[in-house]
């Protein structure tokens, strides 16, 4: 990989790092580690000591660890914004004649800018569960765009190298799986929001006990999870069978869907059984992003590219 593809690839990896860091902020309870935004305790660099706090800020709010965890997420997010801006500009200029690349590039640029602003709202609204969910949903949408841009540009740059014709229509079925997975993510985020709302009513209950009180939406999440797993188990062998060209890209991404899907179910079950341990919650969240990314990767590797469209 070189040039644009390499940058897009790095930006995608960085996106997954930031999603991980965001989840880490969430599970370590560092969301309000910096109570203000975009600065942290009125400084561009978080304080290391209570004595550095501005006089109007309550020192009991200050927690060195939480401030730094939140600050590193912001720093990584800001860097991501810059990297994706570069991808967007380069993508728009380089692929101005290929709508399947310049449109996602524009969208990625807009999404990351909006995410940055919306991240400020998360702090402003003091981690309102719905706003946190939107923040995460947007991040997974951004990850989808970045994976698509990377794989699509890779295929175009490596010379219109297509899966077999029978395989191409499979991408619509893969797209349905993407919608299912995104919906599933929304319900998952709503469970987390429900737990937080309940936690205020029942301060002495632990997360596991609260989960059992969430009710309807949790059951829907388990149900859709089962549907997605069944869908993946049917769809993946079907995709592989239809691709008689045995494209390595199709193979590794489709198999990835299956592996990540099974991992997600296992992680989700551990959450229910073990009462939502923090690390498992984080991994469940991050693997949702991985699962969705692999679906997009499969979709992009199945998409047809006109012979000689841009290949070099």
């Amino acid at each position, binding site marked *: 990989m070189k040039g644009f593809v390499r940058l897009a690839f790095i930006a995608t990896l960085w996106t997954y*790092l930031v999603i991980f860091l965001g989840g880490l902020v969430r599970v370590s*309870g*560092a969301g309000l580690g910096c109570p203000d935004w975009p600065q942290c305790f009125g400084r561009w660099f978080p304080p290391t000591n209570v004595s550095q706090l501005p006089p109007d800020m309550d020192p009991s709010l200050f927690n060195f*660890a939480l401030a730094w*965890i939140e600050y590193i997420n912001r720093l990584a997010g800001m860097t991501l914004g810059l990297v994706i801006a570069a991808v967007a500009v380069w993508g728009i200029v380089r692929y101005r004649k290929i709508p399947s690349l310049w449109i996602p590039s524009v969208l990625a640029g807009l999404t990351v800018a909006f995410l940055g602003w919306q991240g400020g709202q998360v702090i402003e609204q003091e981690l309102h569960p719905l706003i946190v969910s939107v923040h995460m949903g947007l991040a997974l949408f951004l990850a989808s765009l970045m994976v698509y841009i990377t*794989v699509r540009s*890779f295929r175009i740059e490596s010379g219109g190298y297509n899966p077999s014709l029978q395989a191409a229509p499979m991408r619509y079925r893969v797209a349905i799986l993407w919608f299912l997975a995104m919906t599933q993510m929304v319900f998952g985020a709503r469970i987390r929001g429900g737990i937080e709302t309940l936690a205020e009513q029942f301060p002495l209950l632990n997360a596991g006990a609260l989960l059992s009180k969430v009710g309807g939406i949790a059951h829907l999440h388990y149900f859709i999870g089962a549907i997605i797993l069944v869908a993946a188990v049917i769809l993946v062998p079907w995709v592989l069978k239809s691709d008689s060209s045995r494209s*390595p890209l199709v193979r590794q991404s489709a198999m990835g869907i299956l592996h990540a899907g099974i991992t997600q179910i296992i992680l989700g079950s551990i959450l229910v059984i073990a009462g939502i341990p923090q690390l498992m919650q*984080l*991994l469940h969240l991050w693997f949702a992003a991985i699962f969705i990314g692999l679906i997009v990767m499969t979709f992009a590797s199945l998409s047809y590219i006109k012979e000689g469209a841009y290949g070099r």
Partner: protein
Amino acid sequence: MADNNRPHFPNVTLIIAVMLIVFTALALFVIRWANISKTTPPVLATLPDFTFTSHENKPFGLADMKGKISVVDFIFTNCHGPCPIMAVNMGELYRDFASTDKVQFVSISVDPERDTPAVLKEYALQKGVDAPPRWIFLNAPLDDVIWLTEKGFLLPAEDLPGNHTTKFVLVDQLGQIRGYFDGTDGDLMRVIKEQIKMIAREMP
């Protein structure tokens, strides 16, 4: 058929696996760090001013505790009850913090008649305490010891020396009490260490 001349897409499974391992390790560390930070020990009380005599026959009081984190306990050299275990535990902490002068250990004798500074010095040598001492043994008239124990450290001081408290008291750099620990429970030393580290972050 796969064409070897064509560029290959990186092995995504491998990348995900590596990221997963690195991230999990990072997360384990960060989550633990965050959880500990949220349980930073509260300020329970502030010590009154006092001046006792150290095993080096020098005055030692509140002023000498300020600027350092101290772990304080109550002992007597002739004690055969819980003291040997307490001394082992305190000795373990003493060695763990050998690299820093921000932490000191203070053992106050509850049998001052017998535990003169000279006796305490002998005892300190036995415990392997070198100069300049990070582990200080204190002597004061029994009434002063009782007063400091009850009014300062908020611990019982009846039927001394036999019935002395076995608590380790964690005192911060401002002379404030931040925690009490059963000094005969070796497992708690790990907790004290963590809390000392936490309080040390508050120091300049």
